[in-house]
């Protein structure tokens, strides 16, 4: 049983022009076996929330706390957070030229598990996970995210998640840019991962479409750098019908 606890989180982005506050008091709890959806309009800061949890150096936390099972996440380096059990499926995965997927996966698994997986069982493990996401075996020989289509990048993120088995997974707009078939495959992958591992999922999305495949326990509306409304899955249906307009004023408050 794991708990990611975000309390009164304020964060800014640091650019040459100075510091711009983006997160303005986020309170959120993600627990094992549960799925929290965070929905919001473009520019509301929901991707920033994902990056701040993962520890991207571009952002500075100015107030508040993040803990994983009581441990101070903000005190950890990016790789320490991953080894503690956090995983971020990125909206825009980064290309790493010259590093093959198979080498990358094995190096990651070695780092997370603390020892290199035995080669024989590892190959089977990767094959099974790839088959579950309808990925061709030749994929493993390509360089990380280099020349991947949008759908391939997202499948690759979910593949990593299922192999690295985090306690809490953050999915940042994993649905964006996916056609309906790819969305179904990726969603099934997320559901299977959660059933098998009992992990907690923080699902960040702009659209309600993915919620037809992944049922959230809680839906949070994110606007103006904080959560402005919380409800059950029915809140997603309201958003589907009405859009984000009525939250525009709340965002400015």
């Amino acid at each position, binding site marked *: 049983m794991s708990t990611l606890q975000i309390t009164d989180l304020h964060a800014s982005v640091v650019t040459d022009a100075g510091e711009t506050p983006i997160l303005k008091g986020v309170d959120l709890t993600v627990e094992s076996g549960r799925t929290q959806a965070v929905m919001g309009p473009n520019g509301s800061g929901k991707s920033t929330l994902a990056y701040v949890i993962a520890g991207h150096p571009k952002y500075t936390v100015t107030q508040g706390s993040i803990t994983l099972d009581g441990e101070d996440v903000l005190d950890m380096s990016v790789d320490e957070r991953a080894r503690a059990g956090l995983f971020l499926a990125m909206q825009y995965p980064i290309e*790493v030229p010259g590093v093959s997927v198979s080498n990358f996966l094995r190096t*990651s698994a070695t780092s997370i598990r603390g020892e290199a997986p035995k080669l024989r069982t590892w190959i089977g493990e990767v094959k099974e996970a790839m088959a579950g996401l309808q990925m061709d075996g030749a994929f493993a020989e390509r360089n990380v995210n280099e020349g991947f289509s949008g759908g391939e990048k997202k499948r690759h993120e979910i593949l990593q998640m299922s192999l690295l088995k985090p306690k809490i997974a953050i999915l940042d707009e994993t649905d964006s840019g996916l056609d309906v078939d790819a969305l179904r495959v990726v969603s099934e992958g997320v559901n299977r991962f959660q059933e098998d591992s009992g992990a907690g999922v923080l699902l960040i999305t702009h659209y309600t479409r993915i919620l037809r495949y992944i049922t959230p326990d809680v839906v949070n509306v994110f606007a103006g750098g904080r959560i402005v409304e919380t409800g059950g899955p029915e809140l997603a249906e309201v958003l589907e019908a009405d859009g984000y307009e009525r939250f525009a004023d709340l965002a400015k408050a």
Partner: protein
Amino acid sequence: MSTAQAPPSDLAPRVLSNDPDDHETPHGREEEWRFTPVAKLGDFFESGQRGSVTATESEFVTMTPAEADPSTVEKDAHWVASDLPSALARTNATSIVSISIPAEREVDDIVVVDLTGSEKLNYGRIEISAGAFAKATVVLRLDMTTDVSGIVVTDVADQADLTVLALYDGPRTSRHVWQWATTVGRDASFLGLAIALGGSIIRLQQNVRYAGPGGSAELLGAFLASDEQFQEFRIFVDHNEPHCVSNVVFKGALSGAQAHTVWIGDVRVRREAVGIETYELNRNLLLNDGPRADSVPNLELETGDVVSAGHASATGRFDDEQLFYLQSRGITEELARQLVVRGFFVEVLDKVTDADLRRDVIRRIEERIGMDAIEQQLTDVDA
């Protein structure tokens, strides 16, 4: 811009002579020498009795006494010294390391040539010839502890296919000044790989010209400079024949405040060289603040009737987004940096088709960037 008095090409050497007296002593202000620390190479510009570079004889490798008259390979390759160090090496080396692949001979095993020097500074005269339709891979291992001023004259005859890999991996005290000149025959292929890891000063002038149409030259380089290492690669491809191809890819990784690398990519496409394809690329990766990478591509087109002609050069800081991505998967910062550096060189190293040779080169690079720790981690459990 050229003037009426200027030589026909800005890129071609001005003086061609094997007599050292015909060449000026470089002072560092000349275009060809402006990046080189000439003050640290004074003895390379003085005539004198030095040692000569030697190699162990084998099936394709012989040691022959040097003579003043042009050798067969020099004549076939149309080679004449073009600066003071090459003229001094040509004149003063007492013997020639001759690597000769007979016509129509396809050599499966790699021809490994370990070059050694006897004195503090040695003149090197290396000649490589691949006869018509021959096919071979030659590795020149320059692991020597001594200094070398040398020339490698290479003639690739019609439709031959020759790969030469030069590996500079000596101690951080040795100085290397080499001219490597290759003539590519009709429909012949030449792949030249320069791997520079060691040495305190490495200056490699690499010239390519063609002896007939349809020739292909690929010049690749991977270099790692750290601490106070200086490495300079000056490429000159003279497209003097029609329908030939040249492809130049040099990649360097630099670390430490004093490291300095120079890459000059000169390509001349003469009026008669119609239908050619040329591309050159230099990428430098700065691993931290401080190192200096100079990169100057020059393309001189005397005809517009080419298939393609292009160049690219970029020197960039380490990409923090790549680092973040790898670290977010639990990989430590140190390991992530090493993975990115190794990945950076893959484009060049993949051209080393022999698996054992590629493994050896990768191992040497990894040693230089401290990669052995990871491999150990991954292989321990399998054992």
